[in-house]
């Protein structure tokens, strides 16, 4: 056999950024996708109960959180450009902004959780809350992990590291824009 087969550039080589981060992104999308599909499937068994339960969530707060996250993602994307342009000062300022908006997201999310807890609503109250706590809780955990990751990659400030950290952060964005309409709006 000749070398041609192994040396031909594969589609994977076109992938921007770190391959392992893409493996993670696809895996996360599969998990959240399956979770949201399961949520909608169980909803068929009790539409009225789900609608009633959904009323307890902070729909407006979640809408604001969408704006917060996509803006934070924008800052992270600009930070990658700053890293590539070799401007570490601008990069760190942008990353700090992205992290701060992540914190804003968590505060709004926390307010919703606090209200739910105050109303005595737990995982077990209704199938809707099992899913909403699970899905948004997993997502919020990723927001926290992303904030830490962004802070870590801003220290060496190499374009490659910043790009990888920002990719994780965009994945958190991506999951939220799919999760928000399904859990809060439908």
């Amino acid at each position: 056999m000749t070398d041609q087969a192994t040396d031909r550039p594969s589609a994977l080589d076109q992938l921007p950024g770190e391959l392992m981060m893409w493996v993670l992104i696809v895996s996360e999308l599969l998990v959240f996708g399956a979770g949201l599909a399961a949520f909608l499937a169980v909803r068929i068994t009790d539409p009225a109960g789900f609608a009633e339960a959904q009323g307890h969530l902070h729909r407006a707060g979640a809408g604001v959180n969408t704006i917060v996250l996509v803006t934070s993602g924008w800052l992270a994307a600009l930070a990658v450009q700053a890293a590539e342009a070799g401007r570490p000062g601008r990069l760190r300022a942008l990353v700090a902004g992205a992290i701060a908006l992540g914190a804003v997201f968590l505060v709004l999310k926390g307010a919703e959780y606090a209200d739910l807890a105050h109303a005595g609503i737990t995982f077990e109250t209704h199938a809707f809350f099992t899913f909403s706590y699970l899905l948004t809780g997993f997502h919020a955990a990723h927001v926290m992990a992303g904030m830490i990751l962004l802070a870590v990659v801003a220290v060496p400030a190499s374009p490659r590291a910043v790009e990888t950290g920002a990719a994780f952060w965009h994945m958190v964005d991506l999951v939220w824009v799919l999760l928000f309409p399904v859990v809060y709006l439908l």
Partner: protein
Amino acid sequence: MTVTRAWLALLLLSAASTGLAASGAHGAVFVVLVLSLAGAKAHVILSRYLGLSAAPPIRAGFDLALGVVLVLFAVLAIAA
């Protein structure tokens, strides 16, 4: 499209979702519109924030998978 224009597009799409929800609409048309807006947002994030616009075949793969998933979501949501 720069990342800044992508951000503006995302803001517009989010505003559209919010407006749609605030209008009190529901039913099959509402489901399809809301999920279409979500799909558009996801497409922008994948293309511009995550840079897949530089790799059209891969982006096409993501778009296809996303489309299938959103159709599944729509079917399940309308069935309820």
